[in-house]
């Protein structure tokens, strides 16, 4: 068992280690302008990001991202629930929503600069405009997909509308809401960077672009690596939160480890794949 684990562990690590070593060795003697020595990148990375520029570039970026993301989550869920529950609203807004969703958000950067100037609000606006739709559309679909029988049950027990919304519709839609939020997080990071590359005075995106313009290639690579790390960290946090909130969902679909399920349900996987199948 432990040997097996060790082998698995080694298999996971061997390629990254080899690649890193190979790149390190190659870059040390290659003197390639675009690919500076690994040690140099690491040194510059430490110089910049431990912790000189954390306050001036990293924090503003992350704050803008979080602000935009929060607005999108609140707005997307609210409108998603509204549109999910009203067929007329849903149908009437569909073309506009589809258009805005298909419109590449960076195309609106000039518009945002025109309207909001070059400060934080234009960047937040761009992030909201790109991240709102996946959340909205997923919420909408989640709301529409609530089990009819749960709603019947709520009606037969005379549960008032607000309680139905809070205790049945939103929880039932939450797996889809989280799916949308996950998609949006990725988009949000992209838009954070893009919006900082156009008319900005700080932020990671600004830093990366500035490094390139002043030909500080190791610093540019450091910025790219930092963005990768930021993406990893945020998605790690997201998955932790999601797993916690949606534990019931994974349990109900038979995806929790065996020890958490006292009785394994036959047909649980079948239901996950084909919701309309009655588990007889």
């Amino acid at each position, binding site marked *: 068992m432990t040997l097996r684990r060790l082998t698995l562990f080694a298999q*996971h*690590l061997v*390629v*990254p280690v080899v690649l890193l070593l190979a790149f390190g060795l190659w870059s040390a003697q290659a003197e390639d302008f*675009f690919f500076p020595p690994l040690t140099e990148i690491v040194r510059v990375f430490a110089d910049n990001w431990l912790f000189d520029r954390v306050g001036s570039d990293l924090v503003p970026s992350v704050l803008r991202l979080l602000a935009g993301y929060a607005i999108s989550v609140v707005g997307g869920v609210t409108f998603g629930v509204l549109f999910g529950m009203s067929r*007329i609203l849903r*149908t*009437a807004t569909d*073309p*506009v929503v*589809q*258009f805005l969703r*298909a*419109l*590449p*958000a*960076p*195309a*609106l950067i*000039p*518009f945002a*600069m*025109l*309207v909001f100037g070059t400060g934080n609000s234009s960047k937040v606006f761009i992030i909201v405009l790109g991240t709102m*739709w*996946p959340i909205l559309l997923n919420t909408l*679909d989640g709301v529409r*997909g609530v*089990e*009819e029988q749960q709603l019947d049950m709520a009606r037969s027990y005379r549960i008032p509308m607000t309680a139905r919304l809070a205790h049945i519709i939103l929880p039932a839609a939450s797996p889809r809401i989280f*799916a949308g939020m996950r*998609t949006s997080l*990725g988009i949000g*990071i*992209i838009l954070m*960077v*893009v919006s900082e*590359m*156009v008319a900005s005075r700080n932020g*990671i995106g600004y830093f*990366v*672009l500035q490094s*390139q*313009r002043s030909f500080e*290639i190791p610093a*540019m690579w450091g*910025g*790219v*690596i930092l*963005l990768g790390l930021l*993406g*990893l960290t945020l998605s790690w946090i997201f998955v932790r939160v999601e797993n916690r909130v949606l534990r019931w969902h994974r349990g109900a*679909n038979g*995806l929790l*480890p065996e020890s958490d399920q006292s009785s394994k349900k036959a047909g649980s996987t079948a239901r*996950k*794949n*084909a*919701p*309309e199948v009655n588990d007889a």
Partner: protein
Amino acid sequence: MRQPVKDKGGPPSVAVPETAAPGARAARRPATGAWPAKRADLGIKLAGVLVVLAIMELCSRLGVLPRDWFPPVTSMYAELFRLIVEQPLWVEIGRTLRAWAVGIGLAALLAVPCGVLLGSIPLAYRMARIVIEFCRPIPSVALIPLAVLVYGTGLEMKVFLITFATFWPLLFQTIYGVQDVDPVARDTARAYGLGPSARFWVITIPSAAPYIATGLRIAAAIGLVLGVTSELVGGAPGLGRAIAVAQSAGNVTLMYALIITTGLLGLTLNSAFAAVERKALRWHPAQRQEVAR
């Protein structure tokens, strides 16, 4: 344990095929004449669009919004019409689309074989996993400065960025698709004496096809985002740069007309790919629901 297959590909990826409507609901509600309902829907949609446009027009004409920033919608569309007739629009669209098509094509050529390989050989997947997981979260746009340095501000730069960005969703969808082949189908094929290569063509590829179609739809959206962004930030010719130029020249109406064009282009591409995806999904809608979203 592997997470449930879900599209983790990032950007706009949420077109939900209508097939996803839970069967039980549809069964209980008896259909009341599908065609008139559809026509009524169309009317409601049209009304929705017209209301939004009318509000924008009114806000601009009545000066609720500053006229310099929000020209009347009618003049935006007049400008758009002029652009269509006078053709500079098609040139810009063509520039953007060419990079988009080449980039996605390259990404598909690279990602699908890699995905099949990683999906069918667990050892390969395990070995490559950390590298993939580290590269994926790097926002492709962060590489714009590098791409500009290496490739200049032409087509190559755009293609590189689009290929890099769309490679990941295609790769992951292919891996999921190949890994998700129904074991019963595989066992059946084996029991009937199909060899490995026959199994690959008869079982693996058809099973993975819907996932790849989904990957392509996601890639189409990301590709356009990257195309426009690289034009906007990197200064390569195309719709993105045209928008930036119009803005800095103070030609607001032109800017809006170009933004509308970009949106319509995105809408067209998205609808086309969603249609392809629905077709690929049709043979097994319930099975694909999770991923399709």
